[in-house]
């Protein structure tokens, strides 16, 4: 049993100079067989394992991770959480996640530093205004908080924005979702890992999947760098590497993996207390609790697994940032990095069964998977445990690319990737 994190535990451990904290999760060797194995120890994979154990009573399960947990896109995103998506299916999916976020620190007994500081999306031309107003109405019909702000209200909400009509793409207004915000990305992975481990889930790091063993149309197990592990159910949450796993199993996915970049500045005093995103000029920015400006850049348009990106993408984003926030013109950027995002043709995710019995995929989150982490894990766990999708992820099946029933969210993906 795990010790509960609390103020009393903090005081107690202070007396021993914080040298006797219990380790947060074990480091087990893989067993010969599991009831289910999750491939990918990022937020989505760990959340899936957590909910499989918690809600579906599947305790004999493992998460295999080729590197260290939370070292992929979970540790590389810009931590934005929101649910203001256009279509009903996506609005329900992302708001399901947002509702779990609201109680997640308590549920995990781990501070994920969820901060509902509000997310504002800016409009820079007439079409933006029409699209964002339409989105606001659609959100409200789905019970999601959203309001339209005119230019003056945008300026009041975030005073450092340049709302002059003279800039290249003037701010004509924006939408605001107050329930939206940010969370500490690493803490999400660690909190789910600790919670899953406490229920008996084996989290096996440095264990790369090398093959999916099939018996006809059913899964029999996985080949890994730590040997063969037998299982009848494999849930893949491998983000940018989903196609690599799919190719091992002999199936094709409608994905392309591309580098997406982000960067942070040197830390400064609080200056921007919300998340501000702009689709048209491709700039989004927030400030971390450490004081760094967190800036999201765009994707490169070619397939690459290098976790790098091109300089011109960063340059384009920073040009837009400086046009909107001239006050940042002398800021120094501290770090820049890339993550590999798996993009679907309709910019919506896949949480689905496949043509192979016992093989499930949770992928295609593209440029915006972090916000969905708890909901994605919950629904993927339901899909794996029951061998049937939950009503909330029914629309996000692989079959939609055959039936044509796509969930086109290119607009609500907030930035034009």
């Amino acid at each position, binding site marked *: 049993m795990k010790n509960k994190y609390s103020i009393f535990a903090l005081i107690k451990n202070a007396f021993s100079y914080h040298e006797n904290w219990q380790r947060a999760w074990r480091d087990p060797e893989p067993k010969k067989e599991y009831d289910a194995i999750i491939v990918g120890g990022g937020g989505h994979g760990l959340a899936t394992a957590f909910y499989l154990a918690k809600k579906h009573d599947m305790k004999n399960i493992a998460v295999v991770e080729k590197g260290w947990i939370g070292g992929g896109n979970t540790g590389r995103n810009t931590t934005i959480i929101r649910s203001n998506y256009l279509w009903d299916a996506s609005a329900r999916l992302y708001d399901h996640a947002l509702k779990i976020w609201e109680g997640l620190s308590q549920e995990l007994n781990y501070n994920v530093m969820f901060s509902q500081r509000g997310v504002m999306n800016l409009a820079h031309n007439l079409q933006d205004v029409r699209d964002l107003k339409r989105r606001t109405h659609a959100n409200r019909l789905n019970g999601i908080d959203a309001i339209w702000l005119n230019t003056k209200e945008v300026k009041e909400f975030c005073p450092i924005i340049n709302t002059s009509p003279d800039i290249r793409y003037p701010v004509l207004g924006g939408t605001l979702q107050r329930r939206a915000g940010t969370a500490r990305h690493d803490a999400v992975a660690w909190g789910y890992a600790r919670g899953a481990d406490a229920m008996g889930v084996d989290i096996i790091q440095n264990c790369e999947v090398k093959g999916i063993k099939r018996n006809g149309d059913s899964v029999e197990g996985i080949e890994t760098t730590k040997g063969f592990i037998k299982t009848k159910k494999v849930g893949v949450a491998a983000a940018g*590497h989903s*196609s*690599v796993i799919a*190719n091992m199993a002999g199936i*094709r*996915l*409608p*994905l*392309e*993996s591309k580098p997406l970049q982000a960067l942070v500045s040197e830390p400064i005093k609080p200056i921007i207390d919300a998340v501000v995103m702009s689709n048209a000029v491709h700039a989004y920015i927030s400030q971390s609790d450490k004081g760094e400006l967190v800036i999201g850049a765009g994707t490169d*348009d*070619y*397939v*690459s*697994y*290098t976790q*790098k990106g*091109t*300089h*011109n993408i960063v340059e384009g984003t920073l040009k837009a940032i400086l046009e909107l926030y001239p006050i940042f013109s002398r800021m120094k950027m501290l770090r820049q990095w890339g993550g590999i995002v*798996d993009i679907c*043709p309709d910019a919506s995710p896949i949480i689905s069964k496949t043509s192979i019995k016992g093989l499930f995929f949770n992928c295609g989150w593209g440029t915006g998977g972090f916000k969905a982490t708890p909901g994605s894990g919950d629904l993927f766990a339901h899909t794996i445990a029951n061998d049937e999708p939950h009503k909330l992820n029914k629309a996000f099946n692989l079959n939609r*690319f*055959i*039936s*044509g029933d796509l969930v086109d969210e290119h607009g609500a993906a907030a930035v034009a990737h």
Partner: protein
Amino acid sequence: MFIIKCPFCGERDQSEFSSGGEAHIIRPKKPTELSDVEWAKYLFMRKNIKGVQFERWNHSHGCRKWFNMVRDTSNDIIHAVYKMSEKPPIK
């Protein structure tokens, strides 16, 4: 970031080019006879290889011509560039 040798213009910065995705996907000859599964395969399903991949590229901020390229997506090293009508120089 990498340099691409356009078969028409020579070496240029990658930022002058646009990627057209996987190469050698043949457009169905009889589209009316295609099943939904076959359409999905043609339109959406991609190999998305980590490793050596055959791709189409366009010199969009240059001569605007299309060509093919063999590139390793795990390290962005380009192994070959060849014109649209040519056979891949590498298997």
